[in-house]
């Protein structure tokens, strides 16, 4: 049994934050077998997180053997983590993704985005919400970050 990635103190803090979750969240992990330095750690990190709340549901996919699912979610690299709304068996893709291991400051982003998806509330201003809801063409945002 390999050592946990999250220590007891971190687990306690996250469990506390996860008390604010209200609706189920589907977490879809896409990895690949070869040439993926961070796939294994990302998958383990997500597995450990999902043990901290009954509302988080993790599915594990492989870019090659689950190519159809990867295509459905427009995933073409690994590791990629998709956060989606879950109601019953119905998964609603919200277009929310992490490419690469969500470690360091990105770990905080992951937790925050999980809470946001679970509560289905962006927290944006009414003006921003009105503008975004009125969009009729695709907007693809790629936010480049580093873990530190």
């Amino acid at each position, binding site marked *: 049994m390999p050592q946990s990635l999250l220590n007891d103190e971190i687990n306690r803090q996250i469990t506390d934050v996860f008390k604010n979750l209200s609706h189920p969240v589907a977490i879809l992990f896409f990895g690949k077998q070869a040439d993926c330095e961070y796939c294994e750690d990302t998958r383990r990190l997500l597995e450990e997180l999902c043990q901290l709340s009954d509302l988080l549901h993790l599915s594990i996919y492989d870019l090659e053997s689950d190519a159809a699912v990867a295509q459905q979610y427009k995933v073409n690299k690994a590791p990629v983590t998709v956060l989606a709304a879950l109601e019953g068996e119905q998964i609603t893709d919200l277009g929310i993704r992490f490419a690469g291991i969500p470690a360091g400051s990105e770990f905080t982003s992951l937790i925050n985005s999980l809470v946001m998806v679970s509560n289905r509330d962006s927290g944006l201003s009414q003006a*921003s919400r009105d503008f975004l809801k009125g969009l009729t*063409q695709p907007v693809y945002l790629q936010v*480049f*970050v580093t873990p530190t």
Partner: protein
Amino acid sequence: MLAHQAALESPFVEAEMVEAMEFFELSDHYGVSGVPHTVINDGAGNIIGAVPEERLIAEIKRVIKP
């Protein structure tokens, strides 16, 4: 996080946080040298640094303007 917030509000918005070191070719392709760096619609818009939501919305408006 801001990008994810925007994605939640519209099915037309897709937001991906990309770890720049792990996907070096991609970050190199978009000329990323400092982070956070937000690329909108494959380079039609760029925001360097962390900005308030009004800035992101303004840049999206500029990019999609007909």
